[in-house]
């Protein structure tokens, strides 16, 4: 009886909403969505917060979006999104994006609301499996570890297309706002932040406290602003792009100190307030596409400045990453795709770890099957060299340098 009442209530809300939308002239409301489910298995090392050494199905996404137009210049919509990626997401439903868009002219439009961050070739579609050429995007540029500031923001943006005559076309975006960290108590931020802070503490940045540890981080996103530019050249299918963004993050945590006093040790816990600034987060892109072939390459550079003045911690960690990707459509139903991706961290504060903890070289190759117009399946294998992007919490005994990964994923869209 309770379920029947809930169904009647939901139907009533839907009917009322549709009638209201029709009165507003929004009878062209469109509803679309997708569902994806994957599986990942690694030979060594647990990856992306999943326990992949045992094989993991904690790898899925689902979304539904509602979009409408109010005349030729104004449109809007929202997309609700749910994902599970190991300790990330856990099927919590979030507002993926929701904004209004007024396109005054082709060369100038404005968007206001929660908007996907324009960055690189694939950032805006990185969570949409049906649009990705591979199961996993190269982590060198599309790092799941610090995805949040690069994922979406709340604020506003200007955009447009400008023809430059015989030289082709330019597409630009400029944006500013704030961003959220959906899982402020853990997830991948936890791993990345812990790695950086633990390294800083053990390297002597924090005077005379080699056994200090970080506990219970709470992460809050602040400002984010930047821009992106794409040049579509006169050669059909060839384009170049560049983007830059800046972001601020506050991290509240506890610093646990072990203080030896004669024959005993005292544990002291102190609050920490850490400011993380992501500066000059730059992505350079190049892509060529024709009817069957896609070739792409991207390079990312980023500066991370971490300051905790009360405990005299000041770290700068520069990150570099790049990849090259190729995909060839063998038939209308079968595509071969692969990439080589390199991630490197210049953080010298992590002094006691093996050198390979500072890089990850990923060689991937896979197949993409278009089973129907709305259903695809992908399978790919990876050969990995390095430990970067791996999490300490999932791998408490350390990382193996050479390891393999198998990823399989299927997706439906409507």
């Amino acid at each position: 009886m309770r379920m029947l009442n809930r169904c009647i209530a939901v139907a009533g809300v839907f009917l009322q909403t549709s009638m209201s939308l029709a009165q507003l002239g929004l009878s062209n409301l469109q509803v679309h969505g997708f569902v994806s489910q994957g599986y990942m298995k690694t030979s060594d090392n647990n990856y992306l917060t999943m326990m992949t050494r045992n094989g993991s199905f904690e790898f899925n996404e689902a979304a539904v979006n509602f979009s409408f137009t109010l005349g030729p210049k104004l449109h809007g919509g929202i997309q609700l999104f749910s994902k599970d990626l190991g300790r990330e997401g856990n099927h919590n439903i979030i507002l993926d994006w929701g904004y209004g868009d007024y396109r005054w002219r082709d060369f100038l439009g404005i968007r206001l609301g929660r908007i996907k961050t324009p960055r690189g070739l694939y950032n805006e579609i990185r969570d949409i499996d049906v649009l990705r050429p591979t199961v996993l995007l190269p982590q060198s540029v599309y790092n799941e570890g610090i995805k949040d500031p690069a994922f979406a923001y709340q604020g506003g943006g200007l955009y447009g297309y400008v023809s430059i005559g015989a030289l082709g076309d330019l597409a630009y975006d400029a944006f500013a706002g704030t961003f959220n960290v959906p899982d402020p108590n853990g997830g991948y931020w936890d791993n990345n932040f812990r790695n950086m802070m633990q390294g800083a503490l053990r390297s002597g940045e924090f005077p005379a406290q080699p056994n200090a540890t970080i506990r219970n981080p709470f992460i809050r996103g602040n400002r984010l602003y930047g821009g992106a530019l794409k040049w579509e050249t006169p050669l059909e299918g060839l384009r170049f792009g560049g983007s830059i963004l800046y972001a601020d993050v506050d991290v509240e945590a506890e610093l646990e100190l072990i203080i030896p006093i004669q024959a005993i040790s005292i544990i002291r816990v102190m609050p920490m307030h850490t400011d993380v600034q992501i500066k000059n987060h730059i992505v350079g892109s190049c892509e060529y596409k024709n009817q069957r072939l896609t070739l792409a390459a991207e390079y990312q550079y980023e500066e991370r400045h971490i300051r905790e003045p009360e405990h005299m911690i000041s770290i700068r960690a520069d990150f570099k990453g790049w990849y090259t990707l190729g995909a060839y459509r063998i038939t209308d139903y079968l595509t071969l795709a692969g990439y080589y991706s390199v991630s490197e961290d210049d953080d010298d504060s992590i002094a006691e770890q093996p050198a390979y903890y500072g890089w990850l070289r990923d060689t991937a190759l896979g197949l993409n099957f278009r089973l129907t117009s709305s259903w695809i399946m992908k399978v790919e294998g990876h050969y990995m060299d390095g430990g970067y992007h791996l999490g300490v919490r999932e791998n408490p005994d350390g990382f193996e340098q050479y390891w393999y990964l198998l990823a399989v994923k299927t997706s439906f869209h409507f």
Partner: protein
Amino acid sequence: MLSLNCCFASFGQNKNYKIIVNAGLPYENIERTVIQKIFLGKRTTWDNGSPAIPVTLNSRDVHAAFLNDIVKKSPDAFNSLWMSLLYTGRATPPPSFASDTELLMYVAETPGAVGYIESTTSLENVTGIRVITVKD
């Protein structure tokens, strides 16, 4: 616009499709790149400032031929492009019709609309639309 394919002086009337526009538009010849940008969502207005409304046909052969010649994309690439715009909120896909008759009616009734139909489709007694030629 350079292309790795051969260039022709005009398109449309030499292929198995005809390109049509709403009769309210003052054009008889349109550059291929203008129509290409409209169907890729990069351009939303005609030169006279009126809204440009692209319309597609579900017919596999005609749709593929039009996309290959004018838009320079395969049907899969075209669908992927519009899906990326849809799932990021940037735009909604163009209206799509199962038959030439439905598409003709829509273009005739919609100011600024542009679409394509089979070249063998008779336009006798059809009002409100104009067949155009496309130049490279």
